[in-house]
């Protein structure tokens, strides 16, 4: 059921919508910061390799990143848990209303924030308004940057093109992109379940980051099914949501200090 949260008197509906449909938990206590999720995400979703210079300047194309913090000054430094940060698929997303061309709408069917690459004109307002700073912009056609290719017998080849996922668009320059919760996997699982005449089972499929995590810190599933693993984890006492005070209704729950 979809409720327009912009309507007056939608307060009760907000609490209900806070639950969402697809959700994720990330256990910061067992995350080792190995970056396997980052690599898996890049391969699954055809993220571009931007090169050293642009990555150093803050133009990495990562839909998930491992944030590393520490307490105190050197040498009395105390490490804090790693914090993988990805699109929180907000139920009440700040990025959605600011797009002038509806390139980042809310999906009523999946209850996710979509990004329509074809429609995006590149005003970058959504990225500015995202409190989690998880959107990445295609500053150039990174998939065909000459400096990042290999010269073989006088022709420029891009070996990384061989691993592109055919289920996912290769984005061109000038458009915004962000984590989709591997929506192609969601659709695949739903199609399969539908053809077999059943519901999608919990744990039948998962996102690329959750699949790659060696410590199983990331769990993905239906947060609106109380018996699913993800909602059982999310309802533990150590679950926190980031920047909850902004009323963004994030779908990702962080577990820490258990």
């Amino acid at each position, binding site marked *: 059921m979809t409720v327009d949260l912009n309507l007056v008197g939608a307060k009760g509906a907000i609490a209900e919508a806070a639950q969402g449909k697809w959700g994720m938990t990330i256990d910061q206590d067992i995350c080792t910061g190995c970056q396997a999720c980052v690599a898996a995400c890049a391969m699954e979703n055809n993220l571009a390799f931007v090169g050293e210079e642009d990555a150093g*300047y803050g*133009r990495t194309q990562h839909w998930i990143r491992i944030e590393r913090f520490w307490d105190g000054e050197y040498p009395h430094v105390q490490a804090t848990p790693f914090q993988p940060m990805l699109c929180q698929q907000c139920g009440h997303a700040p990025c959605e209303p600011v797009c002038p061309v509806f390139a980042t709408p809310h999906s009523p069917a999946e209850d996710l924030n979509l990004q329509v690459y074809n429609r995006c004109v590149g005003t970058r*307002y959504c990225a500015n*308004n995202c409190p989690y*700073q998880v959107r990445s912009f295609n500053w*150039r056609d990174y998939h065909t940057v000459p400096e990042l290719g290999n010269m073989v017998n006088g022709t420029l080849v891009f070996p990384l093109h061989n691993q592109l996922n055919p289920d996912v668009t290769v984005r061109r320059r000038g458009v915004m992109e962000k984590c989709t919760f591997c929506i192609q996997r969601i659709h695949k699982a739903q199609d399969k379940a539908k053809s077999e005449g059943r519901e999608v089972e919990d744990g039948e499929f998962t996102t690329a980051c959750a699949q790659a995590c060696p410590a199983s810190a990331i769990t993905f599933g239906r947060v609106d099914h109380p018996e699913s693993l993800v909602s059982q984890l999310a309802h533990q006492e150590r679950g926190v949501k980031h920047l909850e005070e902004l009323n963004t209704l994030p779908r990702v729950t962080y577990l820490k200090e258990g």
Partner: protein
Amino acid sequence: MTATSKYLSGAHEAHDSHHEEDPKQYLMYDPKPRGEMNAMVMESMHTTSWKFWVVLGVLAFLVVTCFFFAWGYMIDEGLYVGGVMRPAYWGVFLVNTVFWIGISHAGTFISAILRVFKAEFRRPFTRAAELMTTFGLIQAGASIFMHMGRVWLSYWMFPIPNARQLWPNFHSPLMWDLLAISTYVLGSTMYLFLPLIPDLAMARDRSTGWRKTFYKILALGFRGTEGEWRHLTVAMNFFAFAIIPVMFSVHTIVSWDFAMAMRPGWSSSVFGPYFVLGALHSGMGAVAMVLFVMRATMKHMDYFIRKEHFDALGKLMLMVTFAYTYFFFNDYIVQWYGGDKATDNLLHWLEEGPMAWMFIQFVFFNIVIPPLLLWSKKVRETPWLLALIGLMINVGMYWERYLIIPVMLTINRMPFTWKLFQPRIEVFLTIGTFSMFLLFYMIVSRLIPLIPVWEVQEGQMTHSLRKVGKAKLPTISEFE
């Protein structure tokens, strides 16, 4: 008149202590025959020295290289040639946009508000100010399109019917922005054109060759009959009143691009009036600079633009400075008092980060120095000094916009992403927009009368010196 003010108003008059100050120093009480004045304005349009062509050539070169070539290169290569990145997704292009819209405000303010309130000193420089509005808006519009990632699809922001029934999102402040700015462009261009018609007709009657054809087309066959004047006056009145709310709303809406966003430093409810005052602040400074350059470079301009005009403009600048100061403190102190953690980080970053020099310059140039200088009539009446203050205010206001956009974007709620913005191709494109503004101004100064002659003449007809006993008293009659 006290002795002090007499001393300040000019050394050559100081010895003359028996008389009131000479009314002839005021343009309105120093009338010239209409034919002579028309000839003066026509001559100022025709006179060009070699310096004019050199400057024009340099500016044209800069426009071609820094504006068209640099922009084309950026469209061809992608936005990576600029300095924008995470977290500063918005950069200097929007700084330029806000700056040029700010500049464009003074035109309407001087011309429409002062016309509505019948402030007599506006008469000789309304046109110069209105031209700033139009040319500033051209630069602002170009900067918005520079900023877009896929500028070739920018028409998707317009509500054009299409097969997929996709409509622009009217929830987005950028949409409001687009509507407000395009309304302002149309309105201010009309408002520039209407008072220009009688002057174009005057120029048509006094030129030959291609100029005659040019003015003939633009003057729309204006002959100066009673009926035409009546219609023109009604239309000008209508636009003067209509453009004022548009002017106030347009910068408020520009400020909403920031104020509506959920970012520390941006989501401030006072941004609307703060931006409007900031726009007037920089616009007044720009008018002072333009008047100084006009007076220094164009023929006969010292007759039309006098000390009294700089004085009046200086007073306006002083008033706007005080109003701006109020909103500056209102914005920053309320944000500081709010005690939000992210805002706290931001304010500390501004005062002691690597861009602190910019913040301090901005405070000094906009808030501290102008009132310390502008209180003095001697300063206000010195054109080059007023132009210098105007330049200082404009530098300060540019810093203010720079602080609000890329510098404030540096600090957000995710400390992991904090990163300082560095402009790259933006430097060239900024030079390009500035050169284009100046180039347009220079070309137009030789094409249309920069002085609204009919308005000056109208003013001089209403002002007269009446003899009462031995004294000559200045009187003003209502014209309409």
